[in-house]
């Protein structure tokens, strides 16, 4: 069972220091991810999704206030690694990423092939150039890019091509886990669809584990096995994709689902009134309470995570003392 879980994150906190006070971008996030599965993390912009990625990959800006918690990768707490060990043993060999706006993630003055090959030379010292280039060409084919683009500079590629080149770069060292941060948000619909197909192909052929960060629940449904909903720096619900789309439990998740347009049904699209709370001094109780239609007295206290049937985990008072049992507060 243990070996089946590739990533186990417990109470991860990432707070930034700003002039106005600490920003609690990631506040006590806990989740598990099975090998070969895809976890989609959904939520509004500014809810801390990207910070979660940065926290897991330890890509931290200078203004760190708090960075605590445990991140077990294959059962080892990598938070205990120092920066140098983390860089050598985890980055790109175990975990790779495709960052947000990944068309800007290529160094403008280095040729594509050299950038893609870079992690190979770094993490497999002594690899011959030929061999490295062979591998680069392989992943280039996987993402569906013509090989003659290898020699070009990033500015000679279209946005979609650069995005795919970034994905190729993420795959080149065969990492076990790839984090995709809004991989398709800046692309047109056709390119998006194309990209999702590429990702699906990779998932099936290589069995790569993905974390997919997105604000687009539609995109998430394409790839995800598990869905996690983030709200104001916290993970308010996690469940398998199967049930999420039909049976989301958290009031926020339900609202989120109701706001997704669908072709077949003729439903009235909903929106959530109000703004998410500021991550500087967020409410001490449930962070969604102000916008929640089902709030009651209890909501002024911080809700615990409740596990419901189908391993559905919800952080909401509505489900406490219900069918599920209180897991932790």
């Amino acid at each position, binding site marked *: 069972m243990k070996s089946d879980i590739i990533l186990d994150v417990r109470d991860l906190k990432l707070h930034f220091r700003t002039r106005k006070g600490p920003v609690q971008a990631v506040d006590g996030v806990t989740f598990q991810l099975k090998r070969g599965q895809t976890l989609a993390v959904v939520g509004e912009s500014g809810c801390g999704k990207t910070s979660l990625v940065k926290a897991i990959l330890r890509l931290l800006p200078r203004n760190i206030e708090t960075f605590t918690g445990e991140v077990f990768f294959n059962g080892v707490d990598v938070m205990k690694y120092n920066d140098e060990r983390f860089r050598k043993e985890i*980055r790109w060999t175990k975990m790779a990423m495709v960052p947000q706006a990944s068309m800007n993630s290529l160094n403008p003055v280095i040729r594509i092939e050299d950038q893609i090959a870079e*992690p190979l030379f770094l993490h497999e010292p002594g690899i011959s150039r030929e061999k490295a280039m062979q591998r680069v060409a392989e992943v280039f084919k996987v993402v569906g890019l013509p090989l003659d683009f290898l020699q070009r500079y990033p500015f000679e590629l279209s946005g979609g091509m650069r995005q795919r080149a970034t994905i190729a770069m993420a795959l080149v060292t065969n990492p076990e886990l790839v984090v995709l941060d809004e991989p398709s948000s800046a692309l047109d619909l056709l390119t998006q669809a194309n990209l999702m197909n590429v990702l699906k192909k990779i998932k099936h052929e290589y069995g790569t584990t993905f974390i997919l960060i997105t604000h687009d629940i539609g995109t998430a449904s394409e790839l995800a096995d598990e869905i996690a909903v983030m709200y104001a720096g916290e993970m308010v619900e996690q469940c398998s994709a199967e049930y999420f789309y039909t049976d989301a439990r958290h009031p926020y998740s339900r609202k989120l689902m109701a706001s997704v347009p669908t072709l077949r049904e003729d439903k009235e699209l909903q929106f959530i009134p109000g703004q998410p709370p500021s991550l500087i001094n967020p409410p001490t109780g449930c962070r969604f309470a102000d916008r929640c239609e089902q709030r009651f007295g209890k909501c002024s206290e911080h809700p615990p995570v409740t596990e419901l049937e189908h391993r559905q985990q919800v952080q909401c008072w509505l489900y406490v003392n219900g069918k599920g049992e209180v897991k932790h507060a």
Partner: protein
Amino acid sequence: MSKIETTADRAVPARRSASGTFARIARYTLVRGLTLVITVIIGVYLAILIANGGGYVDKIREGQIREQISLSIAGNEALRDMTMQERREYEQNLVAIELSRRGLDQPFMVRSFRYLWNGLTLDLGSAEYLLSDSGSRQVRNILGERLGPTLLLMATGQLLLFFTSVFFALFLSRRYGSVIDRIVVAMAPTSAAPAWFYGIFLILIFAGLLGWLPFGGMVDAPPPPSPWLRALSVIKHLVLPVGAIVVSSIFYTSYYWRTFFLIYSSEDYVDMAKAKGLPSGAIERRYVLRPTLPTIVTSFALTLIGLWTGAIVLETVFGWPGIGRLTQMAINLFDTPVIVGTVVIYAYLLALTVFLLDIVYAIVDPRVKLGGGERRS
């Protein structure tokens, strides 16, 4: 060879890349060079128009001719017998011949183009007062003699400034927020003063008060006989003026470039490089310094243009026997041909600086193609 190397679709891009960079830079260099030549021609023409605005230079020349001729007539024994009237006519005649010989009777447009050619080839005739060290009165010789020291001083100063600034800026960006970083940020406004201004203080401190270094000049008064000692003496004299160049700009350039580095290190591809597991040194070199270089080269170009402007006074303050010192002497003596000559030679030097930086720019930025005028925007 791997199988990919041998595939047909690889052959084309391979050739494209090997010679591609070189061809791109060569083509770019050629076009930029031609543009600059045209620019220099127009610039020199403008300078000549200014110098001759309202026929001012013409009048000086005509006056000189008249004076020479009347002197030679006065000194000519054979003409003693002529009447006043005859002598005046004879003089008038000679002046007219001389004027047309020098082309001064032609309309200004025609003359201006001849002046332009003369200006571009630095064929500006003889100086009115100044002599070259070898005793020549030719403006070209005078300027040629002074070019070497100017290039030595400015090139040393500029290169030193560039490299120290880059390394210092990188160092500061690494130590963002530290005491030394704050000091440099606070000191940046001091670069508002030109190099010669700092020169005065350096002279005051190191030559006047401490007496460690010479007040000015390029070599010791009787130049040491051995070439090694002479070189050493030149280096000793270089320290203060080069120091003035560096001190006058280093805080500004370091502050500015450090800010560039900080801005560029928040680019997505730097995060990506970090995620890839690159060591920090490699990130700094390949992902921060390398992509910032084009911006830095552009900003350095502007600093250099300012430095060239200040060079005249810098050389004057340090008594450095270069073009700048010559300009100052020509101003004091009102030596028109030499002054026009210095304007032309400074235009050449500026164009050359811009040209060299353009080439460097094309090398460091693969995005540069023809029509490079766009890039500074």
